[in-house]
């Protein structure tokens, strides 16, 4: 595929938006450019026919990460970052040098890699045994299940990290801070209208991942957004962090994955799914993962429990 004028313009736009996000002096502006960067990147993935990646980039890269950054900025502002001294110039120089040399080394290494035909043929050859018609899902959950297994654990670890920031007197309370909105205001109306639509789209994305672009990560993010909107518009209180069903939902994905992977040991090896049962197994796994991803992402956005008086 030859690069069209559109592709070249898109690349230039991505570069300049990335530069604006990195070099911008104002945090808010940098975050806005970062979100724009994610959306443009999703467009680029789309041009490369990687619809799954485009969906994930738009939902997680631009959406969830963007809102996490905005919340972090609001909290930083409340803390008055002027108290924090700038790192010593020597530290900054060393950090810059390290970053530049790692990037340069990686770039050089990539340049000298032998030309590769990619793994499309290999994946296509064994797709019939994978239990799904979507090659991306086959790679994520079956051929390279290890990576996804570790990713779900990383996500859980990130939430535990955020939770450790809670103060002792606030633990175990409701996640995040209280949200108040006018009961018949625009925001509350928004919160009533959007979640049913988002729930439908989220479940559809998880289901369709078996044979078309979509899957647990993309669908789970949309499901998380439905929950985030209901909490942020004040229609539902955030869950308590010691709620048993909440913790079950959080652990559903990782535990299901580990159990399934271990069960493979008895049949053949770790992470082996017998081809006859692979479809049902993957579908169940995808559902459990979607629940866990949705819950974890939503709770990451809600944040650690905070005292309910302030706000």
């Amino acid at each position, binding site marked *: 595929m030859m690069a069209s004028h559109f592709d070249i313009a898109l690349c230039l736009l991505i570069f300049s938006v990335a530069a604006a996000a990195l070099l911008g002096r*104002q945090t*808010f*502006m940098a975050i*806005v450019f970062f979100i724009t960067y994610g959306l443009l990147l999703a467009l680029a993935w789309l041009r490369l026919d990687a619809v799954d990646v485009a969906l994930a980039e738009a939902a997680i890269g631009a959406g969830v990460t963007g809102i996490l950054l905005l919340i972090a900025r609001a909290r930083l502002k409340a803390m008055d970052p002027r108290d924090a001294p700038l790192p010593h110039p020597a530290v900054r120089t060393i950090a810059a040098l390290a970053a530049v040399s790692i990037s340069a080394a990686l770039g050089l290494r990539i340049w000298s890699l032998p030309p590769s035909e990619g793994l499309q043929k290999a994946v296509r050859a064994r797709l019939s045994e994978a239990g799904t018609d979507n090659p991306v899902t086959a790679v994520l959950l079956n051929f390279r299940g290890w990576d996804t297994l570790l990713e779900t654990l990383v996500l859980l670890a990130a939430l535990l990290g955020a939770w450790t920031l809670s103060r002792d007197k606030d633990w175990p309370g409701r996640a995040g801070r209280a949200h108040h909105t006018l009961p018949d205001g*625009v*925001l509350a109306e*928004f919160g009533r*209208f*959007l979640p049913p639509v988002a729930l439908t789209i989220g479940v559809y994305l998880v289901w369709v991942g078996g044979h078309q672009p979509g899957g647990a990560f993309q669908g789970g993010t949309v499901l998380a957004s439905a929950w985030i909107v209901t909490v942020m518009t004040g229609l539902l209180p955030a869950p308590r962090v010691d709620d048993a069903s909440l913790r079950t939902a959080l652990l559903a994905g990782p535990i299901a994955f580990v159990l399934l992977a271990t069960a493979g040991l008895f049949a053949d090896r770790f992470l082996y799914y017998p081809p006859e049962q692979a479809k049902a197994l993957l579908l169940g796994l995808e559902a459990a993962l979607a629940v866990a991803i949705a819950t974890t992402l939503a709770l990451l956005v809600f944040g650690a429990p905070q005292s309910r008086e302030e706000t």
Partner: protein
Amino acid sequence: MTDLLTMILTAIGLIFFAVGSLGLIRFPDSPSRLHALTKADNLGLGFIVLGVAFQAPGAAALLKLFLIWALAIFSAGASAQLVGRIALDSGRSDASGSKR
């Protein structure tokens, strides 16, 4: 024929987007900037959806296209209200993010 319709309608949509962006840059205060953004862009998106609809392979794709438009209008309307209220509350005309 349908290709021609697509081209004309998406071109009209792009003009609306361009005018809306021009308004965002040129207008002096938040309410008028919001006015430019929400009205022109939603109309522009509508024309683009209408134009692309002629290329849709089936009813399902059509439905998805119009759902996208509806959701964009809805969220633009809600967020415009919120930005407008913050602009009013802060008592200054400039609420485009640079307020301290």
